[in-house]
């Protein structure tokens, strides 16, 4: 399936910003089931410096510096992406979770896609015994790692309330867990904390989710917005398996991957340091349109005050 993805992020600053430096992770990469046919990032005002790098985890990063005083920063990213449905191995074919834990610890791969970077606590995902016990319930002795992962995905979907008011981008994982509330970032990070506390490799994936309500089916949360989910490493054979606790499903053909890391801090779409007094407001609009029916994408504005793009 071909998609045209367009994300427009707009910052409105309370005072004139004379100097700004940002890193953007807004360009999807090719790999696995996903191929990016073309992508652009347009900025207003135009940056004085601009360069592209690929980070440790393989994400495409744009570094920009703006030296012209500005009150508004507009970042428009567009990409054309072909996405194949992921291979969905039978959980029964995956190793038992305790065996997987040993296998993960013994890998001789230090590269960015190695599970080894995802078994430890990270900046935004410290380990907590309460979350560990919560996850442990899904991993009885001998259960396959993927079966346990799916069970935990479903448990979070069933027991957590989707509530954008309950948390913000800085809410600690343990707090979101205690409330059993939050948005996709919270659900993904709670699930990752639980998996890692058991010694299992779990990564954070940011991306987009196309939603097209099918007749008789409910509309999925996170429609036409940035989204986040979990990747669980299930052994050399099955590799990384995507699990979406916000929707209680395995990742499918409508999940378009943007960036991959240990937690939100590794994949944050816009990180910046500006010289300014006063705050700012932020709006993000996302459109995911199947290319076959490509029409000029409409831009819908939603106001927010979060320092980073809104998180479904």
């Amino acid at each position: 399936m071909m998609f045209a993805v367009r994300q427009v992020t707009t910052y409105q600053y309370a005072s004139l910003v004379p100097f700004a430096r940002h890193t953007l992770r807004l360009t999807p990469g090719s790999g696995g089931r996903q191929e990016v046919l073309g992508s652009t990032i347009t900025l207003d005002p135009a940056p004085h410096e601009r360069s592209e790098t690929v980070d440790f985890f393989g994400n495409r990063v744009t570094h920009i510096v703006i030296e012209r005083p500005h009150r508004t920063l507009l970042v428009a990213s567009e990409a054309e992406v072909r996405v194949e449905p992921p291979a969905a191995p039978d959980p029964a074919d995956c190793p038992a979770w305790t065996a997987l834990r040993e296998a993960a610890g013994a890998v001789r791969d230090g590269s960015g896609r190695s599970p080894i970077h995802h078994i430890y606590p990270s900046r935004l995902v410290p380990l907590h015994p309460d979350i560990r016990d919560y996850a442990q319930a899904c991993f009885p002795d001998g259960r396959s790692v993927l079966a346990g992962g799916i069970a935990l995905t479903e448990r979070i979907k069933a027991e957590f309330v989707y509530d954008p008011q309950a948390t913000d981008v800085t809410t600690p994982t343990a707090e979101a867990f205690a409330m059993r509330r939050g948005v996709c970032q919270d659900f993904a990070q709670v699930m990752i904390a639980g998996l890692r506390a058991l010694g299992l490799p779990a990564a954070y994936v940011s991306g987009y989710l196309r939603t097209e309500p099918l007749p008789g089916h409910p509309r999925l949360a996170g429609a036409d917005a940035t989204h986040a989910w979990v990747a669980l490493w299930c052994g050399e054979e099955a590799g990384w398996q995507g699990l979406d606790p916000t929707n209680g499903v395995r990742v499918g053909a409508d999940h378009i991957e943007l960036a991959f890391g240990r937690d939100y801090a590794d994949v944050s779409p816009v990180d910046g340091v500006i010289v300014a007094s006063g705050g700012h407001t932020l709006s993000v609009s996302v459109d995911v349109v199947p290319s076959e029916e490509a029409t000029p994408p409409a831009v819908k504005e939603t106001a927010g005050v979060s320092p980073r793009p809104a998180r479904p």
Partner: protein
Amino acid sequence: MGVAGGAQSKDEASAADGLIAGYRPQSGLFDEMMDGKGVLRPHWRPLRDRLSELHAKGELAACFATADRYLKDSGVFYRVYDDKAADERPWPLSHVPILVSPEDWKRIKAGAVQRAALLEAILADCYGERRLVAEGALPAAAIAGSPEYLRPLAGGTPPGTRFLAFYALDLGRGPNGEWWVIRDRAQAPSGAGYALENRNAIARALTDIYRAFDVERLAAFFEAFRGWLTSFREADDAGTCLLTPGQLNETYFEHAYLARQLGFRLVEGQDLTVRDQKLYLRTIAGLRRVSALWRRLDSDFCDPLELNQRSQLGVPGLVQAIRHGNVRVANALGTGLGEAPALLGFLPALARRILDQPLALPNVATWWCGQAAERREVLDQLDRLVVAPAFTDRIPFVLDRGPEVVAEMSAARRRQLVEAIGRRGVDFVGQELVNLSTTPVWQEGRLVPRPFQLRVYVAATADGWNVMPGGLGIIGDKPDARAVSMQQGARSADVWVLSEGGPAESALPSPPRDIAIRRATGALPSRAADNLFWMGRYLERAESTLRIVRALTARLAQSERAPHADALALTDLLFKWGASPQAAAGAGVGAAASALFDAGIGSVPHLVQAARGCAAGIRDRFPRDSLIALDELHAFITAAKTGPRGATALLDMANHALQIVAAVTGFHDENMNRLSGWRFLQLGLRIERAIGTCRFARQLGVEAAGPDGLDALLELAESLRTYRVRYMLGTARAPVFDLVLLEPNNPRSVAFSLAEIAKHLETLPNARGTQGPAGPLKEAEARAAEIAELDPASISDDRLIGIENGMMRISNEISLTYFTLRQLAAQDGSGR
């Protein structure tokens, strides 16, 4: 050895010597001075003899006191975190040096160099090709678990990067006499500067002994490191910079001290900026390139954009500048990885693999529980071990306070620990308990044995690794190696490495040849300029407030009757000045006391504190005596707070405080080079003084202040005597205003201050552009012209307010032009 000593039996020694009477090595521990039979080790004998001599003459305590006084006078301090009461602690020195025999030193030195080379190779591999992981020599998990394995640097460091440039290792000597490595300090090791000051202190305290001994000198070590790091400088750059987390850091003293000793610039993250992938220092003259940086800030805090986003101490974009090879950072970002206890167990095998040598200095035996066999070994002998976090200081909910001796745990905690190791073995190491050797410490008039660690420093030079011939001795009270830390109340000691050869070459440092003449350049960092400017303003304001208090209390002390109008006007001035609350204004003495002791925004304690805050941020470029005097002022006011509060007592206090202020400013005038730093201090002082004088004139030059108001004004402006000489016929408004506001030769007048301000501004960078004078100078010249036109007989309140506002505009223009980011950013853009 320079001083000979024959063999002596144990009995002779103790009989002859009260100093070491009763000194016995503790059972099961190695003692540096005395063997298990109570016989002095030969290399200690000369020192013991000399100390005993001084002891017998009753001079030893006085000698040691000299060392303490030196450290105090030099302002050597460190900070203890979570200790609000005494955040700055005097540096604690144990006076008896630790002696290291030439044989021991040879082994330590070789082991330290080998270990530096080994860690360098491991770091280069982990941040480069990762062959050790791919080939199975090092588990990927033993690297990935370190929060100091900074992924943005992995594969991103330019070829040829030197990772370790300044490295330290903590050593302990076990009961069998062997030296062990307790831990590695690869991030940004502290203590070398303290070691240097320890040496200075002891060399003063034991001058003759130190000269007679053939002790290796330390200076060459620092000079070689300086030479190496400085070799990376580019022409016309801002010089080598030392990046500090700032004055709240525990070892900030050392950062400032080393910067001064090595001629480096002490900078904080906010002093630096990255443009076009290059690092720059913000100075009052614009951006100056930085090509070599000695980092004393932990890596993760160095770039909020690519590393820890919460850091406010770093430089956004620094990682990009490093990637492009535009700045040499020592140590490279990410070297903290080399400190992980998880690595210790792999080092013996890695030394053989990488260097084809056995490890010269053994580690404390360590098993990383991320591997099944090692985990079993740890669990099998758990009760004989210390269990420690493999990568961090602590593990929340499991090892909340860091490493623990398992044998000391409750059964329940032990069970939890075993479960945790079973679940996430990767987070833990098991380590053998290490009992440290002891060294003599002077305590209550005699020597007693105390356990210690030795921190040894290794630095990069053009010719390879160089080991500091000495080190930092860290003396604790418990033999357990984990309990010895400066944060936990340990003492430090000088370390004397005794040389093998004769005293010939190294006894006295030979004067270095070919010292290049270094003169300060005009590139004053903007933050330093800002601090100096405000230091000047706060000090002058404190002085003015003290003058008001003095004038007020002098009047109150003279008169038994109700205060006159002038005293009421002065009391009211203290209130309007923000120095005392309105409630205190009714009673003159209350207002004066409040201005001297309370915490109001314009009170003396508040202003002195603010001035000290500015001074603390620029410790490296401020006369030492001036800092001492400022501390003394603070101490005096604090102490006086509990004293008597009558008018006479307050008058005495104000007089004394004014004398100390005069000392502070006197040191500025006499001891500061006439560079831009001094000029900013003067600008702040002059602006504040002009504002104050106008304000006094408005308060005291009016009817309400009574007939003596003008006298008070002359007094505050230090112009009473001049006035009396010039005008025989009593005080009148016009001549008084002329003298304190307009007289160009009176150093206290507004006109004089404005002329000085213009003179200072004229010397600063970018004082004039192609369009004429820049903002500050333009404003100052306009105000000066305005003043020159004034008729002393008709100066209204509005006029005075106008002049005050004009002075504030000059202050703002100075900020905009020389301190703020905005202006610099704009300058930079236009200059390209």
